[in-house]
């Protein structure tokens, strides 16, 4: 084996330019892979994080659809349809409140897998300020629980979150909504519900999540305040947000909770299926582009190896004449491919990593709403491992065919000319 290595080394060193060209092909492919995968998964992760900041791992609520049942006639006679009946009933108006909501909340808090629970009731409302009337919604929350789950304090732009606890009829308003209303902390605005109730609340703070669809319509108030606006009894809640210790368990635990409490429980992956799908598609695209780069690099190596072997026909013949087997020859040339692949890929990791680091230092400004200040880049060691394995693997594949051809060379043909 030592002999094979030293022959492979001598061959590579004798043709430095060719060796370096072959290596740079791999380096380029792997470097681009590392850079792209870092940036793309970095952005994906950032988006996932910011999505999860406003999404509970499991959301429990009463679903209109779950209360609609088909009539027995429809179920049993659908195939024959000889009986006149009311098909396709209109939905029933059900109470959106979760029965025994507060008991479920305290029960969930003792669940071993649950990290945090936040009860909520929300309603469509109109915000009235001066002559302006804006459509939006209001969420009645226990602000401390809500903060545990969704880091409300971190998104406060003006005022203080804790003021909601000390101010009767306080309101934390979305920054976009406040801007539209031209309202500031300390202002009082009137809220009307679709059922006719109204109340005047005082803005104690404003928040921005970076998501315009939330910031332009949503406000937080205490559960008691919203219950009063809606003229409901204490204990009336419509949604329970649950965070788990491991968010990846959500898909498994949500159905368990649904079965246990009889309320629709939706995990975050189902709720955000479209967004998650877009991540998957973006990842696939990355791999497609990178594979293309590596295939091109692979063809480069294939070419150079073929050329090297054509140049070395005489040498191969003489080696075979002096006791080298076909396997020895394949090993000598495969080693060259592996060495080129390994050093090319390692250099690629270094260059890709440095570029990725450089990108991660680029300051970005997406306006006051986004919390991003630097370009998000992911430095996952698995990507680097994958890069080197793929780089060496691709070169092995590219080197194998020419090496096998070299092994099969008949020395007599070459020596006789």
């Amino acid at each position, binding site marked *: 084996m030592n002999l094979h290595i030293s022959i492979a080394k001598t061959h590579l060193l004798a043709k430095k330019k060719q060796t370096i060209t072959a290596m740079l092909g791999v380096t380029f492919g792997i470097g681009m892979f590392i850079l792209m995968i870092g940036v793309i998964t970095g952005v994906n992760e950032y988006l996932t994080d910011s999505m999860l900041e406003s999404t509970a791992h499991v959301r429990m609520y009463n679903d209109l659809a779950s209360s609609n049942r088909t009539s027995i006639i429809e179920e049993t006679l659908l195939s024959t349809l000889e009986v006149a009946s009311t098909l396709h009933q209109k939905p029933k108006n059900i109470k959106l409140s979760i029965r025994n909501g507060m008991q479920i909340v305290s029960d969930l808090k003792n669940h071993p897998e649950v990290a945090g629970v936040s009860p909520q009731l929300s309603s469509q409302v109109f915000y009235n300020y001066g002559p302006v009337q804006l459509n939006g919604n209001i969420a009645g929350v226990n602000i401390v629980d809500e903060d545990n789950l969704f880091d409300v304090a971190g998104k406060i732009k003006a005022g203080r979150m804790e003021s909601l606890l000390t101010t009767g009829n306080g309101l934390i308003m979305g920054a976009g909504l406040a801007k539209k209303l031209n309202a500031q902390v300390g202002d009082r605005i009137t809220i009307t519900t679709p059922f006719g109730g109204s109340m005047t609340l005082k803005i104690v703070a404003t928040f921005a999540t970076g998501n315009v669809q939330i910031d332009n319509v949503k406000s937080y108030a205490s559960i008691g305040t919203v219950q009063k606006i809606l003229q409901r009894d204490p204990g009336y809640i419509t949604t329970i947000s649950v965070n788990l210790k491991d968010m990846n368990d959500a898909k498994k635990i949500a159905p368990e909770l649904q079965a246990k409490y009889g309320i629709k429980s939706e995990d975050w992956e189902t709720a955000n299926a479209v967004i998650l799908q877009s991540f998957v598609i973006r990842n696939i695209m990355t791999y497609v582009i990178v594979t293309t780069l590596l295939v091109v690099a692979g063809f480069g190596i294939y070419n150079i190896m073929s050329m090297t072997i054509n140049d070395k026909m005489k040498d191969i013949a*003489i080696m075979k004449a002096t006791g080298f087997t076909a396997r020895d020859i394949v090993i000598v040339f495969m080693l060259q491919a592996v060495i080129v692949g390994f050093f090319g890929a390692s250099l690629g990791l270094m260059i890709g990593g440095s570029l990725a680091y450089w990108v991660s230092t680029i300051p970005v400004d997406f306006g006051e709403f986004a919390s991003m200040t630097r370009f998000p880049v992911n430095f996952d060691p698995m990507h680097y491992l994958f890069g080197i394995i793929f780089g060496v693997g691709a070169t092995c594949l590219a080197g194998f065919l020419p090496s096998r051809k070299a092994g099969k060379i008949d020395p007599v043909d070459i020596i006789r000319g």
Partner: protein
Amino acid sequence: MNTVLQTQTITKYFHEPETFAVLKDVSFEVEKGEFVSIVGKSGCGKSTLLYVLSTMDTDFEGALTLNGTDIHGKTQDELARFRGEHIGFVFQFHYLLPEFTCLENVMIPALKLGKYSREEIRDRALQKLDLLGVREHAEKRASKLSGGQQQRVAIARALINDPTIIMGDEPTGNLDSTNTRIVFDILKDLSRTFHQTIITVTHDQEFAAMTDRIIEMQDGRIISHGNRLSA
């Protein structure tokens, strides 16, 4: 005497462009220490015979026994090892590996065979280079030497594993008369002093005349086995 090479009715066909017998019923023996030359016109099959004898060409009918071993039925890998151990080659064109030094060129077949340690192989290789008078070039790249010097290094390489037989395919075909003389003297000396068996193919009548025995070929047959001088 001790027979090191024996062929029995070796027949070989070429199939391109059409099938014809390039060797017909070739049978002869070579004994240890003999310096044999095979002569004949171009296309008489002498080179083909040499490559059959060398075990590199196994596509033939008949029997070939080298050093008591029938080479039929051996795999290509076994034959490669067998060649490394028993046969040393000298070709018309030197065929050294150009990227390696002369010393490395001589050492490589021995390193492949792996019979001795690296240090021993190095010592032996230097001895062989010394014997061939090219020791001072040991550390030079093979491609930097003159043709005559390269051929001498190639002979040193052929000797490194103490082969049973040295086979030469026009070993002096590419050399001027001075170098031809030098190479011939070296081969002769090896044969005399070390009882090295040597088989060369040549069309150089002068060269052939000075060897122990001339085997003459015509149209794929041996027409003269020559007289054994060393008997």
